[in-house]
Each structure stands twice: as C-alpha cells, then as structure tokens.
C-alpha cells in the first residue's frame, strides 16, 4: 500500500517535475553558460568570452541608468504606496459596515493591464487635456509631464501605486484586524488615545504588515517593464529605463543574447542584495519595538 501511495505521489507531482526540468533547470544552466558568450541570437558560430560581458555591463551607461532608475522609482513608489495602503486599510477598518464592498472596490485597480492604464495616463496628460488646460489657463504652468526626467518617472510610480495600493491595503487590513483589543484597552489606561495611540500602539503593532508590504514593493521595482515600455520607452534621457527594459533591448532589439543574459544575472544579484539590505533595516526597526 505504501508503495502505491509513493508511486501515486510521484505521478501527481510529475507535472511539476517535468515542467521544472524543461522550463527551469535547463534554461538556468543554459543562462549561466550564455552569459559568458558573445552569441547574437542568430549566427551559428559564437565563442566564449570570459567575463567580458560583465565588464562591459559594468561600464555601460544604460545598465548604470537601469541601476539608478530602480532606486529612484523605489524612492517615489514605496513611500506613496505604503502610506496610501495604510490609509485605505484604516478607512476600511473603521467602517462599521460594507467593509467587503470597499475592499473589493479599492482592489479593482489591481486588475488593470499596464497597457490600458498607460493609454489613460497619456490621454489625461496630453497637451489639450482638461488637466493641462487648467494648468495653463489658471496657474500659468505649461507642463510637459512625460518629457521631464523627474515627472515622467513620478507618473509611472503613481500609476503603479494606483495599481497596487488596494492590494497592499488588504495586507494592512488583516494586520489591523489581528491587533488584540486588550492592547488598545491597556494603552487607553496609560492615557494613549487618538493620534498618540495610533503612533505608539497601532503603527508598531503593524510591523509584520509593514515588513511584508515594503519587501513586496521593493521587489516589485526590480521587475518593471510594461509601464515604461508603453508610456516612455525608457526616456526621457534614460530616466525611466528599468532593468527589464535594458535586458529586453539588449537581447531582443540589439540581439546580444549573451550580453543580455549577463545583465539579467547582474540584475538578480543586485535585486537579491538590495532586498537583503531592506530586510535587515526593517528587522532592526522591528527589534526596537520588540518584534523578533
């Protein structure tokens, strides 16, 4: 009987095993090899070039742009989305009724395709849009939103914040719901009410949610593709040029498959290291408030 269970276990797990072999393990090994070649995706011949791809990437202007753009996006996106999600969660949490309805409503932007939202953003920011006419006629400001190296990334960060804020709000909401009532009661006895209670009780108690949301938001910044691809193409002046755009351009526009793979490997090392640093920072903050 145990034998048949074991056989069935392997059988049922086999879709995963076959898939992982073809679509994970094999490409993984291939990638580690490709990164050290100069293959151009078409030519039958290519040779191994040692570390040349990595050295080239290190001095490449576009790779450096992708590196810094990611942190710029983070600086804009993470505070907006974390504060926004907390705000939405607090609203939902304090409603006596219709919590489900508003949770669903705030979550709806998550369903949007980046392509469709890029079309809306481009339309709303177009030269003769009501928004720009208002700015020109009433404030005397003529703003080229998507041609500015500061505003263009900000617009993309806002687009992404719109998409993810309702999703992250649900994480904060479940955090808020898991704070025991006794803690609030105890805090009240110590005179912590209103803002004081929020600042000294609610926020520290929400540490696990802050941790999860921040790490998710940080990780997300290393995988941006659709929004800049459709809206700005990485410009102006590389200000919205992300890692994924760089890898896509190198491998599939310029056909440098080897070099593109090397950039992808650098990207994952940078991602991994950055997330590790953020985790350490957050854990330190958590330890200060008694979280292990």
């Amino acid at each position, binding site marked *: 009987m145990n034998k048949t269970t*074991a056989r069935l*276990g392997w059988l049922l797990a086999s879709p995963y095993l076959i898939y992982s072999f073809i679509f994970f393990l094999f490409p*993984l090994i291939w990638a580690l090899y490709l990164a050290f070649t100069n293959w151009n995706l078409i030519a039958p011949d290519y040779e191994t070039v040692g570390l040349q791809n990595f050295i080239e990437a290190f001095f490449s202007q576009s790779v450096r742009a992708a590196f810094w753009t990611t942190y710029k996006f983070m600086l804009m996106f993470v505070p907006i989305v974390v504060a926004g999600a907390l705000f939405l969660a607090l609203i939902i949490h304090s409603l006596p009724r219709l919590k489900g309805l508003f949770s669903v*409503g705030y979550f709806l932007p998550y*369903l949007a395709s980046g392509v469709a939202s890029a*079309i809306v953003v481009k339309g709303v920011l177009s030269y003769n849009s009501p928004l720009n006419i208002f700015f020109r006629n009433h404030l005397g400001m003529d703003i080229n939103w998507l041609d500015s190296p500061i505003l263009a990334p900000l617009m993309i960060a806002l687009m992404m914040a719109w998409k993810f804020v309702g999703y992250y709000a649900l994480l904060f909401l479940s955090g808020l719901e898991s704070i025991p009532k006794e803690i609030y009661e105890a805090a009240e006895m110590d005179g912590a009410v209103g803002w004081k209670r929020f600042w000294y009780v609610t926020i520290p108690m929400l540490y696990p949610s802050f941790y999860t949301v921040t790490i998710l938001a940080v990780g997300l910044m290393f995988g941006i593709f659709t929004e800049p691809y459709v809206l700005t193409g990485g410009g102006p002046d590389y200000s919205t040029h992300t890692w994924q755009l760089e890898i896509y351009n190198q491998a599939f526009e310029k056909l440098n498959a080897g070099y593109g793979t090397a950039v992808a490997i650098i990207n994952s090392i940078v991602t991994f290291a950055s997330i590790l640093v953020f985790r350490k920072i957050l854990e330190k903050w958590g330890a200060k408030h008694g979280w292990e």
Partner: protein
Amino acid sequence: MPSMVGNKRFKTALLYTLAFIVLIIMVFPYLYMILSSLAPWEQVDRKIIPTKLTLRSYEWLLTGGENVIPRPWLRAFFNSLLVTVSSTLLMLTTAILVGYSLAKLKFKGNRLINNMILFQMFYPAIILLIPLFLIIRYFGLYDTYWAMILPKAVNLWAIFMYTNFFRSIPDELIEAAKMDGAGQLKIITRIILPMSKSITTIIFLFLFMERWVELLWDMLVVNSEKMLTLNVLLAQMFGPYGGYPGPMYAASVLLTLPILILFIIFSRNFKEGMQFVLK
C-alpha cells in the same frame, strides 16, 4: 447624551463620505476609459464627460480601422481568451494535483520537492527569459499558441497555496473515505475539491488576471499579427495610432471590462478568501 450620539453619527457619515470619495478616485481611470471610448472623437481627451455618446470607436475597432491596414482586434481578443483560459486551467489542475501529493501523500522526495518549489519561488525569473525564448524556438513552438501556454502551465505560487490549504484538511476525512472504498481520484474530486471552493476562486482569479495582462513574454514568442493577444496588439498599435485615441480607449475597455466583470462575479467571498492567501 443625545449630542454624543449625534456626534458619532456625524463622524460615521463623514467616514463613509471619505471612503466613497476614495473609491471614486480609485475607479476614476476606469470611468475615464469607458467614457472616452464612447465619446465623439473630437471630444476624446478634451472633455472628461462627453456631451453625447457614440459607438464610432468600437465600430472602428471591429472593422479594423479606416485608412490603414485592418488589424484583427476581435481575433486578438479571442487569442487572449484562448491563451488565458487554457493556461489558467492548466495551472489550476497541476497545482491541485501537485499540492495534493505534497500535502497528503507520504513518499520519499516529498520534502525535497517542497524545498525545490520554495527555492524556485524566490528565484528571479528574469535570468530565464532569454534561454526560455531559445527553448521555445528550438522546439519549433515560436509563433504558436503553445509558446504562450506551455511555459505558463505550472504556477509555483498556486502549488504553494494549495499545498498549505490541503495540509489543513484533516487526514481522518481521507481515511474515512478510503474505508468506504473511494480511490484517490475520487477523494480529490468528491472531498478535497468541494472543500477548497473559496481558495480555488481566489487562486483562479489571481492566475487569470496575471495571465491576461502579460505583455513581455507574449510579445517575444509571437510574431504574426493573427496570433497576437489583445494586450500585445494594443501595446504595439498605441504608438502609431496615437492619432486615434478613441479606438485605443475602446480597445482598453475590451481588455479591461471582461476581467472586471469576472472579478465582480466571483468577489462575493473575496475578503474571506484573501485572508488565507495573504497569511
């Protein structure tokens, strides 16, 4: 103390107003998209609320455009549907089977597979992008539906979710069913699946919407126009058709509305289902 009750009521009303205003802001881009798709062309992006409504943008889409080469917008929609539905169903089925075997069948290698899945989940997929493309091309799958379906036939997150959920189902239930002579397949379809309705709904929705809005992969592996998904076609046409904003909004509605409707239909137990997913 009537004044305090009144005060509290006022606060609640204020809270609902705030919640509602935020809701309007959150759905504003959708409303803008729908209104613009129905607006007369000279009013698109000029007026937030058009003075009259017209279906011209949709007609333009269905006939493939006026002066330019006709584009298969409707076919692109069905391509998206075909690819998303097949891929999502495959991901669900494999996740249920693998999850069941990992949670409920004891066999050597069970733990190893579990750890492999965890490792893979946190592995940056971007490294695999180029070799995956090469594999698809090598197998002659370039520019086919298979290229969009097969690499997205198994989903690690879904396996992970099902494994955790199935672990919470008591073994006694399964043992009892075995005593009654039920085979493993029957146990899965008659006992496990009915118990997993709410989590299946949530996993289905997440898989479906993530697959539906995929851009990079579908853009890479498909080339001929009749194979493109709606998302890819729209992304490609957006630049050159900048002068036709109305139809672009109509296509956006076509891309967005089905998934919104699907989500709203299935969202009855959304909050409860999410509690499990977010744990």
